């Protein structure tokens, strides 16, 4: 069954009187438990598509249904609640809160749940254990390497146990070794924890770890898909 169903979405920006098309009638279906990589040249609309799927941007037209919810129909505050429950975010520059420790960063999305402090503690510790940083939970982001920060960010993304993980160039700021670690981690989240992952990347070796690679070009989703049988 498809976890993410994107139907003919278009996105345009109007600059002065000029209408700039960013996405042109993109249709895409991603099955539950799939690990999809989106590739394409800079400015082709990858981030825009990912943001629309994650519910932090809205298409100009078209429909987006995620796990049966038509997210275009949600109000802003409903959408915020929906994101907190459903989507885990991983960013290129980690986007950790600098004044909070690793533990507190991972706890942050749990503040939006009805969990007690003790329950949150268990979730945070579990998430940090998954990314192998349980011993660093009291470190602040600036005491961690880039790779470690991204692992904390991954722990934050999985803390609420969302069904979908979106990652925008998660290895874009990392060296080869760290990038490899992050990809191994994402693979594990997909295989072991059954997360549906949508990842934007420029890095072919990262894309190779996904099951399916789709290409965007000037706002069009190219029809062909690469399949990797590493699942």
């Amino acid at each position, binding site marked *: 069954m498809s976890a993410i169903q994107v139907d003919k979405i278009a996105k345009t920006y109007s600059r002065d009187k000029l209408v700039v098309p960013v996405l042109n009638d993109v249709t895409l279906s991603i099955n539950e438990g799939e690990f999809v990589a989106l590739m394409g040249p800079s400015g082709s609309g990858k981030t825009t598509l990912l943001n629309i799927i994650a519910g932090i941007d809205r298409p100009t037209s078209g429909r987006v249904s995620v796990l049966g919810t038509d997210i275009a129909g949600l109000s802003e505050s409903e959408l915020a609640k929906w994101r907190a429950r459903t989507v885990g975010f991983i960013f290129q520059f980690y*986007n950790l*809160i*600098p004044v909070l420790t690793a533990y507190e960063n991972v706890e*942050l999305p749990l*503040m939006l749940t009805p969990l007690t402090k003790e329950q949150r503690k268990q979730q945070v510790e579990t998430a940090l254990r998954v990314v192998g940083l349980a011993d660093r939970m009291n470190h602040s982001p600036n005491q961690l390497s880039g790779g470690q920060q991204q692992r904390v960010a991954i722990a*934050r993304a999985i803390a609420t146990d969302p069904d979908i993980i979106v990652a925008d160039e998660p290895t874009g700021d990392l060296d080869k070794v760290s990038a490899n670690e992050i990809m191994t981690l994402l693979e594990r989240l997909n295989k072991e924890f059954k997360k549906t992952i949508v990842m934007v990347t420029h890095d072919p070796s990262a894309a190779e770890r996904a099951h399916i690679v789709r290409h965007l070009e000037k706002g069009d989703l190219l029809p062909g898909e690469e399949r990797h049988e590493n699942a």
Partner: protein
Amino acid sequence: MKIPFKYILRNFYSRKLTTTATVLGMTLVVVVFTVAFMMGMGIRKTLSVTGSENNALVVRKSSQGEISSIINREVADIISSLPQVAKSSEGKPLISTEPVVIFIQPKKGGGVSNLTVRGVTPVAFQIRDNIKLVEGKTFGFGSRELIVGKSISKRFNGVAIGDKVKLAGDMWTIVGVFDAGGSGFDSEVWGDSEQLLSAFQRTSYSTITFRLSDPKQIEQLKLQFDADKRLKQFTPEIERTYFSKQSNQTSGFIMGLGVFITLFIMVGAIIGAMITMFTAVANRTTEIGTLRALGFTRGSILISFLFESLLLSVVGCVLGLLISSTMSSMEVSTINFQSFSEIAFNFTLNIYIVLGAFAFSIFMGLVGGFLPSWRASRLKIIEALRAA
């Protein structure tokens, strides 16, 4: 609000320099405000315990204060024969006819100031029972001797026991120091009423104070004065009420000036807070985008930044109150506009001033923080995230 308070608190701490500068701006506002009100309240408190609730003080209606009041002996005789004047056990009326004059005396810190001299009759000590001699002896009736209030002996030169002061061309000897229990009399010099009259070649008193046989009769007594053509230029008032009213102009002026200056620097402090918070929002744009993406609402963002701004002003307020409270009960003096003479009082910090300072601070924090917080909450998620 779902955003943890420690997030707000740590951001507050993390930019030490701007936080300190902004907090100090708030502190300054609070110090100015509280000091003005502590002065005003101190003056009020001092004059509101001056005199007795059981005495009536008679002044000329047109007078601004005691020194500009004139009551001649005939009027004094009429008043002393009124049935409302209480009598001593020997049957004598408990009335003190008092000339009040001012003279200039050098102050200890340099400069000069006015001192009030009150001429009293022996009855004065009977009807103002909180006057205690603490040093030396009391002045002799019939001699050119004076006693000084304890605030004066602290603040003026040449008024120690044994010193002589020049009054109306004559030399008068200081023979004692009295304690009037923190009232306005502590800032006065007392001597024999008749000696002062003769020295100043005056035939009339300034005011008359007498013990009321029943303090409740004061309103009726006022009507009686108005109805009597010999007395209608004069008015009786409960002594304590009279002195209390004497403080209004001075304390009102000081507090009014305080509010005025406070409002001025408040504008500066609010702008300071606004700049600090706008900078914080600009520096944390990606962070705001991230929080929003994670599911925190615009409302949470608004409140968290408002809280941060309030923290600036409330910490500033607490600091300001701490500074002001070290001045609390410190003795200072100022000219009382209505008696034209120096009055000593203590800075008085009370709960209303504290609440007022908090109200001012919360106002500053909200006003200064609102626009930046609003802006933070209106940011679009994708644009905020792109700001990296």
